[in-house]
């Protein structure tokens, strides 16, 4: 290798970290080298994020040591990590939305007491230009796109001369062209001698970008390869899980039933002329990069945002009329992305969480039938195999998969005829994902499902039809069997080539 420098900047030796009984990291050894892009590949829950949080000084390891430039270093705070030249771009950006780009970049930097706005912005502009990260330093962060916000994060690290830059799933919020742009920037940074760590579970990205790959599973590094010796995605996948799995569920098309949701020309709150028809027995997947109007679409359909203009009909009733006093049963169920904050109360037990949306079914006069609710919850725990099986467990203590199963069990108990599911398998492991998918497909028998997903493979697995969303507009709606259009989804997500 003829890179600028091939020296190890950071070495991890025997790093272990447990949370309660869970071993998130188990004796991990890892070398991070200058001028190299190291990909950290693994399923959700494999321990990638914990490991990187340890490097970023957010967690302290239970055992093991960290060597920076060969010297043992204790990273007991973010500040220590920054001093050691280690910086991290988090999945959820750590920016202050009310401040400008320049203020965010220079926040926390040492320097004089006074700030000079002009000089500050000039410095950020200069830095941005040097690394090819175009951005207006005077812009307020809340007005930036996700891609631009990520650039602010990167600039912040570069402004501190960080030598190790860690990226936690950086492509999740980007459009395909923005991803290309990011990869170019990452390569140019590596060429200038920075050490890049790239955390991902997307195989193709890892293959196209990285120099070395470390595969994590259950808190251990199970494999380490140079990218150029890996022949294919399949090979990488099999190294990752020890067997080849490409998750597939069987799906038989159902005859379409009556119309459960009809939208025509809905505009406003970020939506533009959205029209769709959804029938019972059908899954319509809305795909697109986060932040292109999916939120507004979901909130409109679920009744939390009144459509500004246009018509929405749910189960044959006009929006206002439907939501004036919606029936709890045989009507609408919403499975939100935010399972813990929105779909459940973390402090309440499973029974109370089941009652959250089904309480009308357990009311006698002014009183609640707590006994029957406990019985029904126990049935759900059994039928959906929710662990731990104790119904007095607070929702906040359930794992992501079990919590999602509880939400599904509760929402299906309402026998809905229209289901809005938002990122239903996000953050779940393979087994849980498969179960959630199966349950959703089974629910089609009585309901039409509006699936909003950022995960293309999920959409392709479940959907009968796909709608691609870009800047509040449906670029195209087509059956999943239309392979030509399926191929072009990536472009459509970026607003290229409207198919009509």
């Amino acid at each position, binding site marked *: 290798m003829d890179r600028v420098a091939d020296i190890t900047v950071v070495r991890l030796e025997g790093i272990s970290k447990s949370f309660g009984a869970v071993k998130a990291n188990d004796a991990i050894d890892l070398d991070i080298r200058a001028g190299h892009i190291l990909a950290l590949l693994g399923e959700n829950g494999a321990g990638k994020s914990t490991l990187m949080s340890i490097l*970023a000084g957010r967690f302290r390891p239970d055992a093991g040591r960290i060597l920076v430039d060969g010297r043992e270093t204790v990273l007991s*705070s*973010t*500040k220590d990590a*920054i001093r050691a030249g280690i910086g*991290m771009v*988090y999945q959820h*950006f*750590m*920016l*202050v*939305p*009310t*401040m400008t780009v320049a*203020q*965010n970049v*220079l*926040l*926390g*930097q040492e*320097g*004089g*007491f*006074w*700030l000079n706005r002009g000089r500050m912005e000039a410095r950020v502009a200069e830095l941005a230009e040097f690394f090819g990260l175009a951005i207006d330093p005077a812009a307020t962060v809340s007005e930036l796109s996700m891609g631009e916000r990520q650039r602010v994060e990167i600039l*912040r690290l570069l402004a501190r001369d960080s030598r190790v830059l860690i990226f936690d799933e950086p492509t999740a919020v980007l459009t395909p062209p923005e991803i290309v742009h990011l990869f170019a920037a990452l390569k140019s940074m590596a060429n200038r001698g920075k050490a890049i760590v790239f955390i991902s579970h997307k195989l193709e990205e890892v293959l196209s970008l990285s120099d070395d790959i470390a595969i994590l599973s259950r808190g251990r590094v199970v494999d380490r390869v140079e990218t150029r010796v890996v022949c294919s995605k399949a090979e990488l996948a099999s190294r990752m899980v020890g067997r080849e799995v490409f998750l597939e569920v069987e799906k038989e098309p159902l005859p379409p039933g009556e119309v459960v949701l009809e939208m025509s020309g809905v505009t406003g709150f970020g939506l533009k002329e959205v029209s769709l028809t959804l029938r019972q027995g059908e899954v319509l997947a809305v795909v697109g990069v986060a932040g292109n109007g999916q939120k507004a679409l979901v909130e409109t359909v679920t009744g939390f945002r009144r459509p500004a203009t246009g018509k929405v009909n749910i189960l044959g009733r006009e929006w206002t009329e439907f939501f004036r006093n919606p029936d709890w049963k045989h009507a609408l169920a919403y499975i939100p992305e935010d399972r813990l904050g929105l779909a459940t109360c973390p402090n309440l037990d499973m029974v109370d969480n089941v009652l959250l949306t089904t309480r009308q079914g357990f009311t006698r006069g002014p009183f609640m039938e707590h006994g029957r609710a406990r019985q029904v919850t126990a049935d759900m725990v059994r039928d959906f195999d929710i662990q731990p099986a104790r119904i007095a467990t607070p929702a906040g203590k359930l794992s992501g998969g079990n919590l999602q199963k509880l939400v599904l069990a509760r929402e299906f108990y309402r026998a809905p005829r229209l289901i809005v599911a938002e990122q239903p398998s996000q953050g779940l492991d393979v087994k849980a994902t498969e179960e959630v998918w199966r349950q959703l497909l089974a629910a089609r028998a009585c309901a039409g499902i509006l699936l909003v997903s950022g995960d293309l493979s999920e959409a392709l697995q479940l959907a009968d039809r796909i709608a691609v969303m870009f800047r509040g507009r449906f670029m195209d709606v087509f059956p999943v069997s239309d392979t030509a259009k399926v191929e072009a989804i990536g472009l459509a997500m970026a607003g290229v080539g409207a198919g009509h």
Partner: protein
Amino acid sequence: MTIDLLIPLLAATVQAGTPVLYATLGEMVTERSGTLNLGVEGMMLVGAFAAFLASTATGSPWVGFVAGGLGGLGLAAVHGLVTIVFTGNQVVSGLALTILGSGLAAYLGTPYVGANTPGFGHLPLPLLADIPVLGPVFFRHDALVYVSYVLPVLIWLLFARTRLGLALDAAGENPAAAKAAGLSVPGLRWLGVLAGGFLVGLGGAYLSLSYTHLWTNGLAAGRGWIAVALVIFAFWRPGRAVLGAYLFGGVMAFQLRLQASGTVLPSSLLLMLPYVLTILVLLLSSIRGRVKNAPAALGANVEPEG
């Protein structure tokens, strides 16, 4: 109303508005760094008593002034301990602080009720005091009023032009981001709580050293709570805090004049005016829909590191 009647009223407005201004600015600093401290009323009372005591003991009103600030700071430190270190509920802790503070001031102050203290005398500013209208309204007061003219500018400078102000704002807007930038959020919040408490205490000191020159119980009379409301009215900006404080000063001065003039209106009803105005002012701010200007993480504690 002729100008001859208006000028004394406006001058009284500035006097009555000054303690509220100190307290509003103090609470604003605290809130912008992310902590809600509802104990303003208690901190003002403790500040007022500490100022009275120190000024009486040393004979120097300036020592009293600083002591008032330190009194407010001391009580604010209790709030910091409960909410920043022990992550207790900020609303309840603030209420408890008011109960504790008013109790402390009344308990320690009982022997001194009615006693006089060397306070601040009038100090007309040369040249400025002779400007027609503006002179008598703004420049024929005591030193503490003049300090309060500079304070909003200093606080504006702090937040708009300094690295520290930027960091304080970050702790109030997004503590996680501040932490990721290598800042110590607990440290910044401590600073906000203590500095705010000090300013609120200064407002209390004004009450005993400038406004009354003597010690009585319940000197703050709800001014602390009005300050909490004014922070909202001010949209967390020092400039509007001045406006709000003088609005209140005006109502209080007007109400006192009216009482002194022997009006037929019962005094109990007149005394309601500032409190009614507080509600009206909040109502107006929320109709203007700018409450979203509040620091995003206001009132939310930061979990200790584990």
